[in-house]
């Protein structure tokens, strides 16, 4: 099967602090992989390595069969950053303009957006329930609304691989529901590969087919079906902690 992500023996350190040690991972076309782990277990670091924002001290990373270092087909990849909301609230751009920006590779310099593209924008905005906010300035939206705009932006390019770092942070229940419905659709019907960081272990094991657990500089890959949440929690966080969302 086609390898969408291939990480081989990657080691990474910030200054003198090693956070990933000889980590390997393979993700195939059509996978929906969940990435879990405690705070500071290098989930975001792993994703930044994948996107070439950071460079590993050792090991190699390939995206869609091409080394990340020389990768140049970024439009085939959608990305939602953990810090996406850290935008300047005063930036005078509308929701529509921000989503349209991601159509960069599809628009000619001197052209306005064509009908098809405008429809595509409406489509992704309606997926995240933000069509009504199309003309609003990004800074005038609530936290969750901004996050939804960034989800829409990642979807607008019809990417083959979508990488998400806690995309649902601050997003309300109904939209989360809708989002997972969409993910299932993209993943199952369109065969889009998904990689998603989340702390919501219960939901993520339910929705994905693979789970990568990060912790202690290492990565363990599980099949979601065989992934035992309670064991995981015990293993990573120690005994005595129960899975929060299953308590009530």
């Amino acid at each position, binding site marked *: 099967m086609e390898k969408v992500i291939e990480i081989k023996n990657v080691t990474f350190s910030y200054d003198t602090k090693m956070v990933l040690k000889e980590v390997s991972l393979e993700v195939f076309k059509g996978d929906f992989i969940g990435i879990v782990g405690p705070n500071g277990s290098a989930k975001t670091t792993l994703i930044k390595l994948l*996107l070439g*924002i950071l460079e590993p001290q050792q090991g190699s990373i390939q995206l869609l069969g091409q080394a990340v270092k020389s990768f*140049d*087909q*970024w*439009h085939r*990849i959608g*990305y939602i*950053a953990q810090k*996406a909301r850290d*935008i300047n609230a*005063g*930036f*005078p*751009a*509308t929701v*529509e*303009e*921000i989503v349209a*920006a*991601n159509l*960069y*590779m599809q*628009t000619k*310099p*001197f052209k306005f957006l064509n009908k098809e593209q405008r429809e595509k924008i409406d489509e992704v905005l309606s997926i995240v329930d933000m069509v009504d906010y199309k*003309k609003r*300035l990004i800074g005038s939206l609530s936290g969750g609304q901004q996050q939804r705009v960034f989800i829409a*932006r990642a979807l607008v*390019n019809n990417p083959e691989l979508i990488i998400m770092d806690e995309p649902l942070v601050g997003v309300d229940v109904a939209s989360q529901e809708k989002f997972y419905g969409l993910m299932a659709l993209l993943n199952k019907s369109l065969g889009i590969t998904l990689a998603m960081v989340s702390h919501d272990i219960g939901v993520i094991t339910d929705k994905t087919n693979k789970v990568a657990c990060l912790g202690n500089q290492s990565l363990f890959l599980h099949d979601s079906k065989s992934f035992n949440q309670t064991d995981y929690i015990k293993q990573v966080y120690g005994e005595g902690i129960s899975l929060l969302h299953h308590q009530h």
Partner: protein
Amino acid sequence: MPEIFTYGFMQRAFIAGAIIGVICPAIGVFIVLRRLSMIGDTLSHVALAGVAAGMLGSIYPIYSALAFSIAAALGIEKLRQEFKDYAELSIAIMLSAGIGLATIFISMGKSNSSIFSYLFGSITLVNLQDIRTVAILGLIIMVSLIFLYRSLFYITFDEEAARLAGVPIKRVSLYFNILVAMTIAVSMRIVGILLVSSMMVVPVAAGMQVAKSFKQTMIYSVLFGLVAVLMGLFISFYWDLAPGGTIVLSGIFILISTLLFKNIKLKVTANHIKATA
């Protein structure tokens, strides 16, 4: 014809002013949003060092000034990566380096008070040749901006995301920086540095008050830039004031008006809501 238009120098001032009033805010929108508002001031001081260096090395000072400005613009870009979270710090550092070098070069002798003449122009003293230069520069800038509009917008909003969307951020940034350096180095000698660097900032600040999208910010900024130039030239002529300063203060006046307008609008809505609630 009103008296003001009967003078050739005023006619030329209106033409040059209109061009500056359009290109400076247009390029200024990106400058301000990249948090490089003070780049005009910095590059002009660096250009001074360039002029002094040219005089020392017997190079035609305009060329050395241009070379220094471009080098500084690229240096700022490089520093910006070291100080990602404090973009304006890179500007301040370059300014210090620029004046530092300039004072040393000047004190090394040869250069004399004429050194400053390379920095100061006046909008009422432009000739046809100047207008041609500014117009060509304006054309280059406008075409470049239309061409780069999308990529600049994206880079300005979110550099990381822009790279992932396929924007060649290095090349676009490089080109943009050279454009800014050229604009400043070329036009300051013609219309004066005050006009160039203020026109890049003040109308944009005013535009940001009323605009409801990025496109509108662009449109309003250019509009306010044009109005400031026209208003400034009229006032300067009839009240006998220095034209550069008057144009800039007209811009400031427009900015204050937009600020007041916005605050009053907020108040009125608030009262309206109070009344109807």
